[in-house]
């Protein structure tokens, strides 16, 4: 929804979708500082129109500050063995140099969380933690759609899904690079 609005807004003076709650397009001056992404642009535009700066939940000026390298724990290096293990566990292919670099950068980004003091704060496991978990009555409401489900599988045998016998282990690193060379990728 936001992307659509932003797209429409950037193509100049078309009225925005009614659900945004805005009927006219404001001047683009407010966002001239350009915090970069679509998201922040649309948010600022909305808030400055709907709430006219007094109730805005978005700060008028950026409040974040960069964290010095010395505050973070030492950078994590991902060893090839760990890469192998993760690939086997998650079946995700990121064995190339770029993949590992990306992973290490992501870990570094998340390291910033270490700076926060969480003494006495319970970890949050779900954003829905203040809601009641809905408990359903014990009634039969679904099922009997075997045909529909079996159609989704390429290969079925007499109403059963077909799978290879047991787990096929992922080939080792050396064999895999050889496989990839031969494949189309």
């Amino acid at each position, binding site marked *: 929804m936001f992307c659509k609005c932003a797209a429409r807004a950037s193509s100049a003076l078309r009225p925005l979708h009614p659900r945004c709650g805005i009927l006219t397009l404001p001047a683009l001056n407010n966002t001239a500082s350009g915090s970069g992404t679509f998201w922040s642009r649309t948010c600022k535009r909305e808030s400055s129109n709907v709430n006219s700066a007094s109730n805005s939940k978005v700060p008028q000026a950026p409040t974040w500050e960069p964290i010095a390298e010395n505050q973070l724990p030492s950078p994590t290096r991902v060893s090839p063995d760990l890469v192998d293990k993760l690939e086997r566990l998650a079946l995700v292919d990121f064995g190339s140099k770029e993949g590992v670099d990306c992973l290490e950068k992501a870990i570094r980004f998340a390291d910033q969380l270490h700076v926060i003091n969480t003494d006495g704060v319970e970890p949050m496991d779900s954003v829905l933690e203040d809601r009641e978990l809905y408990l*359903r009555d014990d009634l039969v409401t679904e099922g009997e759609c075997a045909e529909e489900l079996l159609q989704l599988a390429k290969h079925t045998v007499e109403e059963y899904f077909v799978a290879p016998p047991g787990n096929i282990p992922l080939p080792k690193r050396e064999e895999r690079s050889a496989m990839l060379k031969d494949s189309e990728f």
Partner: protein
Amino acid sequence: MATSSSGYSRMFFKLRKYANKSQHLYHIDSFNLVIRTIWTSGSKTQLQTKVHTKSLPQMVGVVGLEVHAQIQSTSKLFSGSHVRFLAPPNSLVSHFDASLPGTLPVLNRRCVEAAVLTGLALNCTINRKSLFDRKHYFYADMPAGYQITQQRVPIAVNGILVYSYFEGHRRNQVVTKSVKIKQIQLEQDSGKSLHDDEQSQTLIDLNRAGVGLMELVMEPEMCCGEEAAAAVRELQLILQALGTCQANMAEGQLRVDANVSVHRPGEPLGVRTEVKNINSVRHLAKAIDYEIQRQMEVLQSAGKVLNETRGFDSKSGNTIPMRDKEGLQDYRFMPEPNLPPLFVYESEASLPAGVDPAQVVLIDRLSAQLPELPSVKRTRLVEKYGMLQEHSFTLVNEDGLMDYFENVVQTAKAEPRKVIGWVIKELMGNLNSQNLKVSQSPISPCALAELINLVEAGHISSSTAKQVFQEMWKAPEKTVGQIVKEQDLWMINDKEELQQICKRIVDSHPEEVQIIRGGNTKVLNKLMGKVQRETKGRTDPVQVRAILEKMVS
């Protein structure tokens, strides 16, 4: 038994001293081990350490059980598909069970209640707040790639399961033990996979995928197969009494995996192996005993026990390493993002505002619904009827037998102790030989009560009654009176007739009479037997004995 053990061990000790480790001796070693294993698995008091040359304490087995009990509910744990044992493949599968994208889990209240009831029956602490997690591993019968379980904070923790088994020559000394239950958690079941080795493929049926399971994790406090079997039997009775699980191992409603290791008491625990594919309580005992013995043999021959998963082969009674050797799995547990924490409340009074009492699980409401547990039933039977403990076990173990018994006792005018004999020996004997359940018994409680009344009133003798019982079994439509009249089995109570019969026997056996007069009264039993045979058992042994004694002397 104790003296012969030391005799054998002394003999083996000498043999070992004089020979080196040849193949021949290994067998003697393991035979020795087998003897010790059999003797120590019975009772701890027989542990005697005079066998080893180095006087090390005996190795003992350590058994911990992981029980998965399928919750008896109409629909599955997180979806509204039906739960049924036999159904066309993939017909009881909803979009969520097939892990189609965009589907979300919705928790079933009945499953939570079942877990809380089981927790209360096993004296657990119910966690007011419990969390759901994802356990990731890949297997074709789990299409999502993860299983929703409760690893961090399960629904119930720290319970006790009290169980008993019988020891001694005649299996009449009861030994009561307890095992701590570490936790009870709710989790999803996986689908079923049928291996087709010919075509090198596996056929997947997702009917069972998503059914609610209660996983009960027990502490490793048991030491042998017998204890584990007794614990599982007691658990089966409790679950069946609560109605939370039908606990039929053959149908897969109760699955038990055993974690077995051996060590010397005082030393740290040894490497454990997990034994799976156990289909009945008897197989459980066999599998555990075999595994303990195997591990002891491995360690005796200076080998190392591997941390692996082994399957039990019921035909050979051995455990075999299972195919998929993946080493230690890393399940990458993560909180289930689609399910907020599960809250269970004490009572309506403690509910926060705006919460509908019909919607949530209340512990005091469930406590009030707890039925009479098997141990309570047994104590009641022993106190009310004065029966032996082993009989109370038989009555409670067999489905419906306790009600049958109480029915007969109420209708019949006999003492409960006599009724017990009839129910346990005659009735159960016949039921077992024909593999019938109590509900299928051709003889109703009233008919049995009638029969017992006849015996009590002296109209038929107890040996005739047994005959009549068998006749009633074969022809349930006839009444007791009919059968007795047809076969003319009325007791001969007429003193004249008795005197005549006894006189006849005495006259036709002059040598025996002489022997009795000489002092050997045991021969009187032979004469009594003759009288019984003549009259087809229709006489009261006490009266006959009195008459014969008078005649002979």
